[in-house]
């Protein structure tokens, strides 16, 4: 971190604030700028006016408690690191705090050793911020992955899965030599695979016996693919407004059909989180009333979760005489999946997890 890290410390005990301000500003090697606030409102005002890297909060405070402050801070400042430093040992509050997205939950240190550990953890949190870097491969597109393999002159087979679809790309000494996708091979398969926006990939050992079917350089291949994607996108943009909704719905239609292959699934309904966004369904004769129920239920329970401070709504599962139904927010979409009534609860949860990992946002 080039700039001096800034920490905001929130507690209603002035002695505590004085002590910890001194400790944090003098004993951390990064010499942070430590600001203090004795009320939640004051802390939020400071966060509004200045940029902080870390917020350390006590839970027990008058008027606005720590969980309320955290809930607002997490929503408004997603980059801000959050640490709880409290005397409350109850497991429930620890769970709720982590569910709300805090980075660490600390019981106020009572010995030198505990204080040392706390200071180390704060130092580590701030240095992690300084180093930056990726938290996972999810932010990498397939184009990035192919480029990385080719630039490093690798020989490997990339196996890519996207829902039920699977594809393979053969790379030999940094050149793409062959590809196989759903029902196609060579360059068309490569282009098809690169249109997938999410999924998983694994590196298989190099297959030196594979016959070469692609003779374009990898840069050429990526350029061709980018061009094809741009053309497809511009065609969609040029379509009339009614058609654009249909096109959007059509783009998710194959995905819904893939979900229907999963065991026990009877219908699928997908909605955008925006009220005016199009809905798309598979296996439902009249999706409108189900969509209304789904939107209202998710909205109500999301508000309830915020009011109770119990973290994000993960899933709603309903059981009726005719079927079971599961609702879940999936990034920018909301999904409703109908299951046969005989499906076991465990299997239903596993299927929903499976869907959530494969869903293209």
């Amino acid at each position: 971190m080039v700039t001096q890290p800034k920490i905001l410390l929130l507690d209603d005990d002035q002695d505590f604030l004085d002590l910890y301000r001194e400790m944090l500003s003098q004993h951390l090697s990064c010499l942070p700028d430590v600001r203090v606030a004795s009320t939640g409102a004051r802390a939020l005002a400071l966060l509004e006016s200045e940029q902080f890297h870390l917020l350390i909060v006590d839970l027990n405070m008058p008027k606005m408690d720590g969980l309320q402050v955290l809930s607002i801070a997490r929503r408004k400042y997603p980059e801000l690191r959050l640490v709880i430093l409290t005397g409350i040992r109850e497991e429930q509050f620890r769970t709720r705090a982590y569910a709300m997205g805090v980075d660490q939950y600390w019981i106020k240190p009572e010995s030198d050793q505990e204080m040392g550990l706390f200071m180390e953890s704060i130092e580590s949190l701030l240095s992690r911020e300084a180093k930056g870097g990726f938290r996972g491969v999810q932010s990498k597109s397939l184009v990035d992955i192919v480029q990385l393999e080719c630039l490093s002159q690798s020989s490997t087979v990339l196996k890519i899965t996207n829902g039920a679809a699977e594809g393979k790309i053969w790379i030999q000494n940094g050149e793409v030599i062959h590809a196989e996708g759903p029902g196609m091979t060579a360059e068309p398969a490569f282009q098809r695979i690169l249109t997938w926006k999410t999924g998983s990939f694994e590196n298989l050992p190099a297959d030196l016996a594979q016959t070469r079917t692609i003779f374009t350089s990898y840069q050429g291949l990526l350029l061709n693919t980018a061009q094809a994607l741009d053309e497809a996108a511009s065609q969609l943009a040029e379509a009339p407004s009614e058609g654009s909704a249909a096109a959007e719905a059509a783009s998710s239609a194959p995905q819904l059909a893939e979900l229907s292959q999963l065991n026990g699934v009877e219908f699928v309904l997908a909605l955008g989180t925006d009220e005016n966004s199009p809905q798309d369904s598979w296996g439902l004769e009249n999706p409108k009333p189900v969509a209304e129920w789904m939107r209202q239920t998710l909205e109500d329970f999301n508000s309830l979760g915020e009011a109770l401070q119990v973290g994000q709504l993960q899933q709603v599962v309903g059981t009726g005489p005719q079927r079971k139904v599961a609702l879940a927010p999936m990034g920018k979409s909301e999904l409703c999946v109908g299951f046969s009534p005989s499906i076991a609860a465990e299997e239903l949860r596993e299927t929903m997890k499976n869907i959530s990992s494969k869903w293209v946002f």
Partner: protein
Amino acid sequence: MGLLNFLSKSDRPKLVHLPSGSFTIDREGKIMTSTLPQSFSAARMQEIGQPVIASFQAAKVAQMPLAEVIIHFAALKILARELRGGAIIFLMPQCLNQPLRRPKH
């Protein structure tokens, strides 16, 4: 009378503790019975019960009647069973250190 209240810090925060237990609510949203501690107010129970009842009713309108709804939050599980237009609602706070699956015997 009230001496202890006077001595205690009146502006001490009240972090809402989520207890385990159940309550029943009728179709009008009135709390009928509860096994939850008194510290968990009736207003809180209604706050939970109303969207549950609304969800049961809306599901019926959508031709998809439901007898049970389980709402999974990161730190709380709510299980609600329909009772003649009302509901019996179980609150089950989730803890990080509880086993994920019931051990097989």
